[in-house]
């Protein structure tokens, strides 16, 4: 997208002491050009929190006490999409028999609610907030006590 600024300047010469005057002077355009890149911008916001279910078989940001992670997304055209990619492992904690899934919601110039992470959403131009949820579920057994951490990828392309 190209933005052009045009400033019109007018100079008028007038002779006040006599009968003659120049009604109009010369004009010139001072021209400015600008450029906005066609791109997608991501900026990490808040880190999320995983909370365990009452039976300790799930760790999720959607459980009571959990919170979403947020990323600010800006698109300068409608050519780009957002999706999230679930981790394959915890960066901290035992990942055995754990299946990860993500979902996300969008507010701002683009609105979407609880979209599965594997599904892309086209961004409208402007600023949107991506709120990401992570769900980790044990296929067998329960999560042992300890600290757990994971990172979800938020992708714009």
């Amino acid at each position, binding site marked *: 997208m190209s933005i052009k600024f045009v400033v019109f300047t007018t100079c008028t010469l007038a002779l006040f002491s006599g009968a003659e005057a120049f009604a109009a002077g010369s004009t010139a355009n001072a021209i400015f050009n600008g450029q906005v890149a066609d791109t997608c911008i991501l900026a*990490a916001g808040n*880190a999320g929190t995983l909370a365990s279910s009452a039976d300790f078989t799930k760790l999720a940001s959607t459980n009571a006490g959990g919170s979403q992670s947020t990323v600010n997304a800006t698109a300068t055209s409608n050519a780009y999409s957002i999706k999230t990619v679930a981790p394959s492992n915890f*960066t901290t904690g035992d990942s055995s028999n754990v299946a990860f899934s993500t979902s996300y919601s969008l507010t701002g110039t683009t609105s979407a609610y609880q979209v599965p992470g594997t599904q892309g959403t086209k961004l409208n131009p402007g600023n949107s907030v991506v709120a990401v949820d992570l769900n980790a579920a044990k296929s067998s057994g329960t999560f042992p006590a300890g600290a757990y951490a994971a990172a979800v*990828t938020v992708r714009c392309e």
Partner: protein
Amino acid sequence: MALVLECHAAHAQSVTPMRGAVTSFADEFALRITVGNPYPRATYFDVRVYDENFQPIEAIVSPPNLKMPPDETTLVSVRVPFNGGSTRKVRVCAEGMFANANQSGVRTQVCGRYLATHIGPQ
């Protein structure tokens, strides 16, 4: 009269251009992209190259790791072999990892998509 016009370049964890097509006579092709840092602090980014299925591929990235001051942009050069093909679709991604004290967080990934065509002898 004073006229003040401030022009700011776009600064962000962004990849520009994010779409492109290149042709090359050589057995490899080169891309030059601009990566930006939107954060108000110095931030580390990695630049990685993937195929159309998001599998990592062989490429020479210079520089592959960036520590960027706030609101700065950096040019990154990428060279990718055709591997015998006449065309190649690649993604070049700027990736940042943002975690809290216990390493929970998000990895932000902004990816450009490019099509390269080999017009020299195979």
